[in-house]
């Protein structure tokens, strides 16, 4: 594959990471804790869509190689993730009387419960959406770009969702309230903002986007009960890279981490080509920069960012 091909793959994977990281960042800034159940919220979205798609079927026509039924399933997946997240907030998080560290630990328990229930119901094997796999778009193959219509659909839908979120945050009442709350929750409350309600909406939006990300992840790869948890740390890496609490930072961080993740094979060819001295360093780099370590590279970047710039590329201020 050429550089262009890797970039195209990176774009598709980035779209999924961005969807996940926005929600995580929103919840981090407004509910004020690191939500370890976010990855498994994505899994819930994916499996809800799987069930829906299995029930309704294709519903006739298709757009971008995806039957109409799939878009209905996508909506159901988003809705299911949001409903589950709101129910969890109402039943578990809200009655808790503990600090953000306690909430963090609780969210791990929640993550396990989500994953365990899915695994009990669907088994631990990989599954796929019952959609014909697409061939890469012919006209792009000469450039070394092997993307399918499905990939285009993923990127397109992600762009629509992200633009929608931008409009919501910047131009609606709810968005202003959310930004106010992220900035200073106490001040927001004394200004008459119903912070509880805003928090619920945050969960709806964050989990909904995560659900969409999960559905697309299932379409891009496969579905498995561990899919969300495996992606969770990559998403954390993206959120931290972008600066916790900054939605636009999370978008940028998600984009970068997704790109780096998919560009790893390209980096390894670059390292092989470079004349690195001494020889053992070259050998070590060659073995460490490989597809197996694509996620590990993201985690190392995450730790490095935490050390050098704990506020991320965008900093805390710009929500």
């Amino acid at each position, binding site marked *: 594959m050429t550089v262009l091909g890797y970039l195209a793959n990176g774009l598709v994977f980035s779209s999924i990471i961005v969807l996940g990281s926005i929600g995580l960042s929103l919840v981090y800034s407004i509910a004020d804790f690191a939500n370890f159940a976010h990855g498994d919220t994505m899994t819930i979205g994916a499996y809800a869509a799987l069930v829906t798609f299995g029930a309704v079927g294709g519903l006739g026509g298709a757009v971008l190689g995806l039957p109409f039924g799939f878009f209905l399933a996508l909506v159901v997946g988003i809705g299911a993730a949001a409903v589950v997240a709101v129910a969890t907030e109402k039943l578990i998080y809200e009655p808790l009387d503990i600090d953000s560290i306690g909430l963090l*630990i609780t969210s791990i*328990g929640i993550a396990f419960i989500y994953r*365990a229930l899915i*695994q*009990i119901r669907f088994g631990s094997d990989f599954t796929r959406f019952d959609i014909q796999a697409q061939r890469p778009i012919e006209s792009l193959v000469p450039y070394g770009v092997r993307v399918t219509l499905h990939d285009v659909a993923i990127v397109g839908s992600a762009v629509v969702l992200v633009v929608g979120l931008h409009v919501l945050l910047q131009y609606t009442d709810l968005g202003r309230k959310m930004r106010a709350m992220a900035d200073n929750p106490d001040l927001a409350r004394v200004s008459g903002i119903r912070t509880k309600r805003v928090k619920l909406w945050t969960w709806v939006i964050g989990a909904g986007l995560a659900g969409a990300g999960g559905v697309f992840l299932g379409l891009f790869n496969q579905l498995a009960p561990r899919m969300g948890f495996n992606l969770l740390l990559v998403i954390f890496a993206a959120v931290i890279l972008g600066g916790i609490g900054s939605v636009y930072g999370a978008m940028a961080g998600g984009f970068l981490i997704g790109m780096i993740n998919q560009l790893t094979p390209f980096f390894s060819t670059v390292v092989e080509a470079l004349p690195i001295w001494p020889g053992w360093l070259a050998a070590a780099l060659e073995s460490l920069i490989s597809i197996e370590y694509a996620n590990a590279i993201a985690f190392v970047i995450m730790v490095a960012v*935490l050390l050098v710039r704990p506020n991320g590329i965008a900093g805390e201020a710009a929500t």
Partner: protein
Amino acid sequence: MSALTDPKGAIAELTRPEGWVLGVSVAFLLFLLAALLTGALGPTYFLFLVGLAGMYALLSFGLNAQWGFTGLINFSVAAFFGIGAYGSALMTASGSPIAGGFNPLVGLVVALVVALVLALLIGIPTLRLRADYLAIASLGLAEVMRLIVLNERWLTNGSAGVRGIPGFFSGWPVLSTFPETMPGLRLEVIPGSPVILETAFWRASLNVLLVLAFAGTVYYVLRRAHRSPWGRVLRTIRSDEDLARALGKNTYSFKMQSFVLGSLIMALAGVFYTHLNLYVGPGDLDPITTFYAWVAVILGGSGSNRGALFGGIVIVTIREGTRFLNDVALPIDPAPLRLLLIGVVIVAVMRYRPQGILPPQRELIWPSAVDGRGTPETPDSGVREQKGGGGDE
């Protein structure tokens, strides 16, 4: 201590949760004893379970030294456990892709040294971070560790794992042949269901002795450390790090010490696991191991060593109980059921009893200073010294 001389008084002194835990433990012990005598539970398997419980207790002690004492959110328990397990396995196993064939004591030392180095490597960058960043960073680094173990086949055998590990006592003068020389015993407590004790049983009992020695030593050391002036600084850091700094303590250094101490204990648990299970694979570094230890600690009560011990036993009950349930009653895959139980326990503890079942109370205070038994006869490092600042070490 006083439980032997004055059992009634000791029971009357217990708090309610302590009484509950004691009652449930005694009932559980009786249940196990009954199962043993009727032959429903093989004695060798039972000893294996005891060994496993001891191992989880060790793991929880290690985490307790970090989270319970100092408030460090370390989500890389599995990495240190795995380092201990792989360190000793690679040194001792016949199937080791590198060296191999050394005495298990060499393996123990190597594992601890490697764990020390790794603890410094992980600790130096992450311990300066805010608590929630530390959680994420340590989970990430543990995952990096797991990927390395999984992919560097020349070093670790990759996903095949390491086999051919000897028992811990192989190569020792008497103990290495002890299981073979012991005669097979046949006990018939209940007529018709004899309990047969063979070589495997004696081997397992050696393992239990080993883990009891490990856990006992660690328990004693941690108990002393927690009460010492050093432990008091750690507790201050846990409740208010700025205060500790204002008192002139180098909190980073104290955190590092507690991190290294805990990591070594986790590695010790890993070493024991290697010689108990006689096989290690990359699956042992799965994050679930980390959260087993976490559940044990928060369930038992953060900062409480006996709570960690209790938590360790609960974990083994969940782990093996789900397997048993799958065999006997409900045909539910044990893996997700275990996950579900762990999740429910975490949420329930955080919801109803965030301080844990056996939170540290009197065990933090120098024994002679409690219960109005008059003023303590000036302990060499007592509670009263706090005003003067006390020594650091």
